[in-house]
């Protein structure tokens, strides 16, 4: 067996391990009730995807994949602070400097206490089916199997079949997290898991620079959308409703 073959096999094994990690973290994300755990699971998923992008960059000798890895690492660094920014929504005090205001707004420790406080088990009328971690884990697992089943029926067994299945699975599990969430922040995490499904598809399915470049452009549009939600809409909604629970965002139905 030549060195190239060994290298290719190692890349293939590495890719599959990372893909499994991505799905495992998505399942963890779906089953856990605490926002802090969801953020940690999401960050782990990002790291796995960044590693995959680096492997692909080396394998294909294409620097654009390093660009994808860089975007993911930036996301890894800033995500917790961004979610903290949405959690700490106290208005700026008179005379308070912008720097101190920003520092207070992005304070992770302060935000964590809110996350703990707003955990579903602390909610008096929490739906037990949604609160039980086994139920979402089972449903998410079924979605992953469903994605595999659908893909195996319709897609030819190409080289990147596992990646295709995994990206589809991440999208479905992400959507499920959104639907099953108690609070707006956890819902946001579901959206971000869906976004990771896109990254996985981009890294595994795309094999040429042109399409990857177009994909990177589209990801900037996506980030703009995510930022608008995190910086503009969620803080405003939280300020006006004084709650992060989805149950409390039902004025339109009154």
């Amino acid at each position, binding site marked *: 067996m030549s060195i190239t073959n060994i290298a290719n096999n190692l890349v293939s094994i590495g890719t599959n391990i990372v893909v499994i990690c991505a799905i495992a973290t998505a399942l963890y994300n779906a089953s856990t009730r605490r926002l802090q755990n969801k953020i940690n699971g999401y960050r782990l998923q990002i790291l796995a995807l960044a590693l995959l992008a680096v492997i692909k960059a080396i394998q294909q000798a294409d620097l654009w994949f390093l660009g994808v890895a860089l975007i993911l690492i930036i996301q890894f660094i800033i995500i917790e602070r961004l979610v903290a920014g949405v959690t700490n929504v106290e208005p700026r005090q008179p005379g308070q400097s912008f720097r101190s205001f920003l520092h207070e707004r992005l304070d992770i420790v302060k935000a964590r206490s809110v996350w703990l406080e707003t955990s579903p088990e602390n909610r008096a009328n929490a739906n037990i089916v949604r609160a039980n971690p086994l139920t979402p884990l089972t449903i998410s697992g079924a979605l992953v199997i469903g994605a595999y089943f659908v893909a195996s029926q319709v*897609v030819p067994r190409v080289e990147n079949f596992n990646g295709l299945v995994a990206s589809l699975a991440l999208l479905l599990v*992400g959507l499920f997290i959104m639907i099953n969430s108690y609070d707006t922040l956890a819902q946001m995490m579901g959206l971000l898991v869906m976004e990771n499904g896109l990254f996985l598809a981009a890294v595994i*399915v795309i094999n040429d620079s042109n399409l990857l470049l177009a994909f990177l452009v589209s990801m900037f549009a996506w980030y703009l959308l995510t930022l608008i939600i995190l910086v503009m809409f969620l803080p405003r909604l939280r300020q006006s*409703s004084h709650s992060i629970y989805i149950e409390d965002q*039902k004025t339109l139905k009154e």
Partner: protein
Amino acid sequence: MNGFFNGGLLIISGIVLPPLLTAIASLFGKHQSRRQSVLTFIASVFSFGFSVALVFYILSEPSHSFHFLFLFYIDALSTYFILLVNIVALFASYFTIFMPRQDDETQAEQDKALGSSRFFHFQFNLFHVSMLLVPMIDNLVLLWVLITFTTVISAPLIDYRRDRRAQEAAWKYIMISSSGIVFALLGTIFLISAFQFKGFPVRPYIDINWSNITQALNAGLVTPIGQGIIKLSFLLLLLGYSTKAGLFPMHTWLPDGHGEAPSPVSALLSGVLLKCALYVILRFYIITNLALAGDSFASSSLLIFGLLSLVMATPFILNTKKENRFKRVLAYHSLEHMGIITFGFGLGIPLAFFGALFHALNHALNKALMFLTYGNVQAAYAKEQVPDEEIRGAFQLMPVTGALLGLGGLALVGMPFFSIFFSEFIILWAAFQKVPTSKDSFWIIVAVCLFLISVTLIFAGLVVHLGRILLGKSPIPQGKVRENPLQIASLGALLLLLIIGGLTTFPLTPLLQESVHILCQGVQEVCLP
């Protein structure tokens, strides 16, 4: 016609630049809302004028199309949608002049309570530009970017009032749209990756452009790696873009978004934004039909999605509870009509394409009329502190506006001699035409029956809602509200267009025929000559 500076490019500049420049100018303007609104309207007039010029330009030669600036492509189908965007934008921008505002002294208060006028006009014009660009873009990934951008720019417009309800509506809109649109990008990636271009050692950059993919498929220069992946891609694309097109099951943002936005924005959202997403679905429909070479999978999917949307809209329109406010009911009508349009395309025959395209325009005009007229009624009652759900006796208080709302409502539910009736009739006629030749004739008959039952129930539902608003005793004393003749005239013009559309498709017939010809690519049935 592929030169860098050709007549087409000049016309396109005339279409895009006025609203774009107005958007930029709005940012530098002072808090003079009316002046900004007038500027927005003038920009829309110019843009509309140039889109009419584009229609003549594109019809000057048979099957005329042109590329420009590498990323853009115009043909009859895109011209039709550009015209559709601009007709509705023309009326919507005119009504921004009459939107509620305060004088300069209370401007600071207004900026807190309402979205700043500067930003409103900036976003409104940019929203207009983004929707104009959708039918022009050739690149499939950039098409997705533009559709995403329409969400980015329209969400703050829904949140214009900045109260809790508007914030909630904007939040729902942006979350549902974002989650749905992810499926569309994944579908795009899968679809592009599923094609193998013959004779290209490296994938060419142009293969991300739908015009090139269509040409290559027509010429047999490209083969899909499997039919399954094309089908999966189309389903993902349909699911993703149907979020923006307001189709079941991703329609849930419609009642909240349309219900809480200012009326000119609701008119744009309902009349135009949904059609832009539909346009994108149609482009992928053509590619899928060509790639599947005669398989009717794409048509069947559209038919099922369309029918489900129509059927699912029925109970919501029949709901006469107080909290089902009229603008929400109108939003459910969008679900109904987008269902009818998609059903038409799903029939997959030229006559149905013709009817569905015509219905798209009719629905856009009718929705503009309904949202703008009801916006007037709403504003008049709100001035007297009457909440939305307590609006009664509008016909007594505002006779002309009330009559326009009533007639517009009847047009919307498909009353004979209005354009919606005409286009629905064409679609049904096409369905009956398809029955004898189709393998699934039984299912088409079932679908037609469901179509007719839903449309009849919806007719009854809207009449009840309209009766509640128009009839009865108004809580505001008669003579307290004065109707603005400038508003009435423009609403009357919209109604006139709906009546003309009920009699003839002229002068749009050649453009519709050219568009049908484009849609027929890859479809089994014989197309128009």
